[in-house]
């Protein structure tokens, strides 16, 4: 296998890690939508914890191996339109993802507080935190950005 083959594999694997993280968060958001019992919510957030390192490592890998590929492959340049578009999408994803994280981390922290305080009765406050319209729209925006990213990588407009 050539260096190009390895770089492409690692670039694609990083993209798989990002999408895997997004699937985990999507499932967690859907599963938490109708929940208001703190212990249930804490359990769901335990599952979604797997997604944090996947998105972090995946985003770093996509960028690093993507830049390496663009430099290494004849015919690709870092200033090609589709590669600049990928950089912009990468930055947007990071900015929106961090805002989304704050919304759902607040719900997770509140669920943990309620569970620790010994009251595991349904909490309308927790339900409203999990049903945050802002959090949902930020997540939808993240999903759309990831889809645009994959489309950009496959269609390579202008290449």
């Amino acid at each position, binding site marked *: *296998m*050539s*260096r*190009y*083959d*390895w770089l*492409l*594999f690692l*670039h*694609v*694997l990083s*993209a*798989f890690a990002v*999408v*895997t*993280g*997004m*699937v*985990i968060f999507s*499932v967690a958001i859907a*599963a938490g939508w109708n929940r208001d019992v703190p*212990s*249930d919510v804490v*359990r*769901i957030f*335990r*599952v979604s914890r*797997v997604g944090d390192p996947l998105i972090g490592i995946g985003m770093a890998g996509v960028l690093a191996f993507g830049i390496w590929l663009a430099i*290494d*492959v*004849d*015919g*690709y340049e870092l200033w090609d339109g589709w590669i600049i578009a990928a950089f912009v999408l990468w930055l947007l994803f990071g900015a929106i993802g961090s805002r989304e994280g704050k919304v759902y981390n607040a719900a997770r922290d509140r669920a943990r507080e309620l569970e620790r305080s010994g009251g595991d009765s349904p909490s309308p406050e927790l339900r409203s935190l999990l049903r945050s319209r802002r959090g949902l729209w930020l997540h939808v925006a993240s999903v759309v950005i990831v*889809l645009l990213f*994959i*489309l950009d990588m*496959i*269609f*390579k407009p202008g290449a």
Partner: protein
Amino acid sequence: MSVLAAVRPDSWNFPLFLHVLGAMVLVGALLTAFAAQVVGWGKDSVGGATLSRLTFRTLLIAAIPAWIVMRIGAEWIYSKENWADVPDEPSWLGVGYITADLGGLLLLVATILAGVGARRQSRTEGGTSALARSAAVLALIALVAYLVAVWAMSAKPD
């Protein structure tokens, strides 16, 4: 170093997009289902049942549709690239077929086991379900197989 390795006719792009997107969501759903089951191991029966249901629903609503999209995309791009006319197919293509189809079978069995396991856990008062655990193990095996396929499909070894 390398010539434009990714040059391909525009008409191949959409089937490839479907194939890649389906594969990505499939891998994500399998890991989610596995993680939900593992988090549920050793927990009280109520929590275990919640997470077993999450495993089952993730496999049924996310993994199976993603497998179908991945497989449709695979056949579509296979026909576009006219691989059927090539006498000796490359080994990476064989790896892709074997992992996709065997993984699909594992996925189907895992979904059934997860569904029956989650149902039993909801009915009984204690313990975790061996069926749900088996589903998680099968999901993990399928996940590993698909990661091998990702390597074969992207690096394309001879």
